[in-house]
C-alpha cells in the first residue's frame, strides 16, 4: 500500500510506520469492541497513514461521521472521537454525549483522541458543559508531518498561513518544529540549517531549544539529511498567485487535489463495455488517487502540460504494440509469458486511459479564450509590464462579475510584482471590488493587506525588477518539452522560492546578499553539532540531501521545480519537501478570505 513512500532517496515508510504504531497503541488502550466517530476533515490525512483493515484488527467495528444529534446504534463497548481541537467540534461531541441513553446496558465508554494535540481550551470547554468526566481516555495523536509521497511531507494544516500572518498565532510553527524533531529522531540530526523569513527563524529557534531541553542526550543515527532549508511563504508571495502550468499543478488548479485524491467530472470516464453501453452514466464524481505509485503519473506529473500530450501518445503506441504481440505468440511458452505480463499491461492501459481523459478535460480549459487572457495578464505582470496602472482585463472581469477569488489573485499578483500598488490604483481596484461584490469584502481586502499581498507602494520604489533580474525569475526562452531551467513550470516564470533553494546549493547565498535583504525577514545559518562518529564522509559524486520546509504552504509547481533540480545530472543535491499545507492560489486566497455568512437565498 505504501511502496511509493520508499521509492525516494529517503525512505519515508519509517515515518508512516511510526504513525501506525502510535495509532495501534492508542486503540489497544481502549479494550474491547469500538466505534470511531470521525471529524470528517481527518479521514483524508488518516487515510494516508492507515487503512480500515488496521483499525479492524484492533476491534474497530463501526465508523461514523461526527454530527450533532444522537449517536447511531452500535453494539460496541467503546466510542472514540477522533477530532481536531476545535470548539465547534466540542459542541457536537457534547451534544452526542448528552443524548446518549443512560439507561442502556451495557454502557458505552467514551474516549477522545485529539489530532494533532490535546487542547486545554477544548478540555475546559467540555468541562464547562459538564461532560469532561464522561471521557475515560483523553489523548493526543501527533499527526505532524504526514508522508504524501516518496519525497513529500505535509502537515495539512490549512490555516497555518493565516494564523501566522494575520492572527499572530504561531502554534502551527510549534507543530512544525515538533514534526522536525520527530523527523530527526528517525533520520538523524540535520547538521546544517538555513532559513529565510520571520517564521523560519522562529522554527529554527524552537528546534534548537527543544534539543537543549534534552541535555546529555545524543542522537546516534547516521544523518540522512545534510541540510534543512526553512522558507517563509511570505518571502515569496508571488509564486502561488500565478497559474501553475505543470500537469499536476493544473489538475490542482482546476479540480483541487485533496490528500492525494482528486474528484473529476464522471462523463469522460464512463466505461464503454460491450453489453452495457450507455446503460447508465455515472453521476457521482470519479475519484482517483494521484501519487508516484502509478508509473505513468510519476512520469508526467511534473511536466509542463504542453509536453504531456506527446508522452501520452508515445505510451499509447508502446502499449498497443505490446498487446499486438499476442498475435505473434505461437508457442505455449510465449503465450504463457504474454499472459503473465497481462496484469501489468492492463494496469498501464487503465492508467493511460485515465490520464488521457484528464488531459482532455484540462485541455478544454487551457485552450479557452479566458484562460489565455488570464495567463497573458499574469505573464505581463511577472515580466514587469504595465504593473503600475489599472489593468483593463481585471476591470473587465470585475464588470462581468467573474469569481472574486480570480480577481483577488490577479490584483494581488499585480501588487506583488510592483512592490505594492500606487495609492490611486489600489483605491480604484478596492472601490470596484466593494461596489460589485459587496462592502463586507472590505474585511477580506484588509486581511490581504495585512498579509502583504495587497498594499500601497510605501517606499515609492519598486524592488521587483531588481529581484527579478538578479534571481533570473523571468526567462524568455523557455523550453517546455525538454526543460533546462525550473522556469518551465510556469512557462517563463521561475518560482522565487525554488530559485533561493537552487542558489543556496550553488554558489551559496553570499552571492545574493543584496536581494535577500530586499525580501522580508532575516536570513540565517545554524549548525547542529554531530558526534565525530556520525560525521559524513561523502563518497565522490554522492548527492547531498536537502529538506526544504515551506512554512505557510507550497504549490505543486514548486514541488515539480525542486524535483527537476533533484534530477539534474550535475545538480549535486536531491530535495525532500515538507510543508504546512499543499496549496494553490485559489485555496490560499480562500483561506485568507473572511468567512462570510452565505446569502439567505
Amino acid at each position: 500500500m505504501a511502496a511509493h513512500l520508499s521509492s525516494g532517496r529517503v525512505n519515508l515508510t519509517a515515518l508512516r510506520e511510526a504513525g501506525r504504531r502510535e495509532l495501534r497503541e492508542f486503540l489497544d488502550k481502549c479494550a474491547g469492541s469500538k466505534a470511531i466517530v470521525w471529524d470528517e476533515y481527518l479521514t483524508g490525512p488518516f487515510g494516508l497513514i492507515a487503512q480500515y483493515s488496521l483499525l479492524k484488527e484492533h476491534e474497530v467495528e463501526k465508523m461514523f461521521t461526527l454530527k450533532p444529534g444522537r449517536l447511531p446504534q452500535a453494539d460496541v463497548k467503546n466510542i472514540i472521537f477522533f477530532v481536531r481541537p476545535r470548539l465547534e467540534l466540542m459542541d457536537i461531541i457534547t451534544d452526542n454525549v448528552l443524548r446518549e441513553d443512560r439507561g442502556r446496558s451495557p454502557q458505552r465508554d467514551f474516549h477522545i483522541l485529539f489530532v494533532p494535540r490535546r487542547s486545554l481550551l477544548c478540555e475546559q470547554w467540555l468541562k464547562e458543559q459538564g461532560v469532561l468526566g464522561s471521557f475515560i481516555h483523553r489523548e493526543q495523536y501527533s499527526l505532524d508531518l504526514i508522508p504524501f509521497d516518496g519525497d513529500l511531507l505535509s502537515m495539512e494544516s490549512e490555516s497555518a498561513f493565516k494564523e501566522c500572518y494575520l492572527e499572530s498565532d504561531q502554534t502551527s510553527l510549534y507543530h512544525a518544529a515538533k514534526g522536525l524533531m520527530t523527523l530527526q529522531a528517525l533520520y538523524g540530526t540535520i547538521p546544517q540549517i538555513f532559513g529565510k523569513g520571520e517564521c523560519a527563524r522562529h522554527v529554527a529557534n524552537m528546534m534548537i531549544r527543544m534539543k537543549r531541553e534534552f541535555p546529555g542526550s545524543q542522537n546516534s543515527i547516521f544523518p540522512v539529511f545534510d541540510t534543512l532549508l526553512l522558507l517563509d511563504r511570505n518571502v515569496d508571495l508571488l509564486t502561488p498567485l500565478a497559474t501553475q502550468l505543470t500537469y499536476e499543478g493544473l489538475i490542482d488548479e482546476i479540480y483541487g487535489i485533496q490528500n492525494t485524491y482528486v474528484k473529476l467530472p464522471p462523463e469522460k470516464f464512463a466505461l464503454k463495455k460491450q453489453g452495457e453501453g450507455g446503460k447508465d452514466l455515472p453521476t457521482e464524481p470519479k475519484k482517483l488517487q494521484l501519487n508516484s505509485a502509478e508509473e505513468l503519473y510519476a512520469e508526467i506529473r511534473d511536466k509542463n502540460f504542453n509536453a504531456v500530450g506527446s508522452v501520452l501518445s508515445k505510451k499509447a503506441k508502446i502499449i498497443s504494440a505490446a498487446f499486438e504481440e499476442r498475435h505473434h505468440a505461437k508457442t505455449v511458452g510465449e503465450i504463457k509469458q504474454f499472459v503473465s505480463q497481462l496484469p501489468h499491461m492492463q494496469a498501464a492501459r487503465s492508467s493511460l486511459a485515465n490520464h488521457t481523459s484528464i488531459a482532455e478535460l484540462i485541455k478544454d480549459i487551457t485552450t479557452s479564450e479566458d484562460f489565455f487572457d488570464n495567463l497573458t495578464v499574469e505573464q505581463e505582470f511577472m515580466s514587469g509590464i504595465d504593473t503600475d496602472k489599472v489593468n483593463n482585463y481585471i476591470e473587465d472581469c470585475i464588470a462581468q462579475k467573474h469569481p472574486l477569488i480570480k480577481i483577488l489573485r490577479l490584483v494581488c499578483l499585480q501588487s506583488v510584482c510592483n512592490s505594492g500598488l500606487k495609492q490611486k490604483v489600489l483605491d480604484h481596484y478596492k472601490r470596484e471590488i466593494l461596489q460589485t461584490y459587496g462592502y463586507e469584502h472590505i474585511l477580506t481586502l484588509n486581511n490581504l493587506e495585512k498579509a502583504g499581498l495587497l498594499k500601497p507602494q510605501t517606499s515609492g520604489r519598486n524592488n521587483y525588477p531588481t529581484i527579478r533580474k538578479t534571481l533570473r525569475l523571468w526567462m524568455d526562452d523557455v523550453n517546455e518539452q525538454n526543460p533546462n531551467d525550473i522556469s518551465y513550470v510556469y512557462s517563463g516564470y521561475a518560482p522565487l522560492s525554488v530559485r533561493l533553494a537552487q542558489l543556496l546549493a550553488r554558489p551559496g547565498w553570499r552571492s545574493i546578499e543584496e536581494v535577500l535583504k530586499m525580501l522580508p525577514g532575516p536570513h540565517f545559518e545554524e549548525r547542529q553539532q554531530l558526534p565525530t562518529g556520525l560525521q559524513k564522509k561523502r563518497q565522490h559524486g554522492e548527492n547531498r540531501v536537502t529538506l526544504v520546509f515551506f512554512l505557510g504552504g507550497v504549490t505543486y509547481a514548486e514541488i515539480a521545480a525542486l524535483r527537476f533540480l533533484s534530477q539534474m545530472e550535475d545538480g549535486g543535491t536531491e530535495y525532500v519537501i515538507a510543508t504546512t499545507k499543499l496549496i494553490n492560489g485559489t485555496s490560499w486566497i480562500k483561506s485568507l478570505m473572511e468567512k462570510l455568512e452565505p446569502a439567505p437565498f
Partner: protein
Amino acid sequence: LKESKRAVNSLRDIVDDDDDDDLERVSWSGEPVGSISWSIKETTSSSTSSLEGRDSNLQKGSSSYAAFPKQVSSYSLSSLFKGEGPHVLSYLCLSLSALSDTGVKNYAPELRRPKAEYKDYSSDWSPKDTVRRMQRGKVCSLERFRSLQDKLVLLDEAVAGHDGNVITAVLIFLKRTLRREILFRELEVRQVALCHLIHFLKESGEQKLLLDLLRLCFFFFSLQLSQYREHLNIQDVEKRREFLKGCIGLPFSAEDTSHIQDHYTLLERQIIIEASDRHLEMAGQSEIFQKYPRKASILNMPLVTTLFYSCFYHYTEAEGTFSSPTNLKKTFKIPDKQYVLTALAARAKLRAWDDVDALFTTKNWLGYTKKKAPIGFHRVVEILQRNNAPVQVLQEYVRLVEDVETRLNLATKYKCHDVVIETYRDLKDRIQLTAYKCKVERGSADEEKINSILNNMVRNTY
C-alpha cells in the same frame, strides 16, 4: 492527445475480447477499497445491503488488497516495555523503539526526558517549567502564581513558547484572576497575547468583554474591522442598519470610513426600496413586476446589483426618488463606465432597444447627435449579443466599433453581413469580398449588394 485517446479506445476492444476481469482496485467513487473514508460509508450503511454495497464486496474479493501480507500487528511491542515504566519513556519513544530491533538504544537517548521530569508531583515549578509542562499536555495548576509580577512572567514565557494552546490557557487564568483594567493595560504592550485573547473571546462568544476590549484598543487599526465584522451575524435588517450606523463613528482610516458610510447608506436605501417594491408587487398594479416577478429581495445585495435592479424596475423614475438609477449613481459616485455597463445589461435584458440607443447618444451644442460609449462598442456588442439582440440592433453597434479588425471579426461572428460587406468595400478588398459571397444566402439582397460592389470596383479600376 487524440491519438492516445484513439489508441486507448482501440485497446479497450482488444482487452474486451481478451475477456479478462477488470483490474480496478477501487470502487467507483475512487476510494481504494478498505480506505478509511470508504469504510465509514461502508460500516454506516452496512445494514442496508445496497447494490453499491454488493459491488464493493465483490471488488473487495478480487482486490489485490487481500493479497498484501498483513501488517504484523498482532503483538504490540509496547507491552515489552511496560515493565520499565512507560512513564519514563515518552510516548513517541515507545512507538519508535518498536520500529527496529536495535530500537531502544538508537532512538531513546534523544527522546528520553530529562531527569526533572521524574518529579511529577513537585509543586514548585518555575514559570518556564510550567509552560514547558503545559506544552506537553500535562495539567498543572496555575493558582500558585499569585503576584502580578509572577503572572506576567508566566504569560511572557507562554508567548515565547509560541504554543497558542498554552498562551490561551494562561490568558484564561489571567482573565479570571486579574482586574479587567489591569489585564487590558498589560495586554496593550503584549500584542501577540492580545490577539490570542481576542481570538478566544470571538470563538467563545463573549461579546461583551470582546467589545470592551476592542473599545479600549481603538488605537489598533484592524480591530475596528472586527467590530464591523459583527454586522454579518445580525439577521434582522433594521438592527443591522442600526449597527452599521454605529460603526461609522469608529476611527477607521479615511478610505475605510467612506466605504462603511456607503455600506450604511446602501442598506438604508435598500430597506426603503424593498418596502415600497414589495408593496407594489403584492398589489399587482405595476406591469413590470407582474411581467418580471422579482426572484429575490434586494436587501444586502452589492451596490452594482442594486443598480442593475433599479435600472431594471425603476429606470424612468426622476432623479429625486431614492430608487432611481441616476440618484444611485450620484449618491455613490458610480463611475460612468460602471453605470453604462449595468444600465445596458438591464435594458438589453428587457429588450428596450430605444433605451439602449439613448444611452450612447449625445448631443453637442449645435444639436448634432453623436454616438459615444465609454466602454468601447465591442463590449456593447458582446453584452447585446448575450441578451439575444436581433441582428438589426446588433449591426448598428458593430458598425460603430472603431478598430477595423475587431469590427470585421465581430461582424463575421454575429453574421452582420452588411457591416462586413461595407468594410471590405471601404478597404477595397476584392479577394475577401469575393470569398465572403459564399457566406451569404444565395439570391439574397446581400449577394446582390456584393455583386454590385464588385462590378463597381471593376469599373473603377479600369
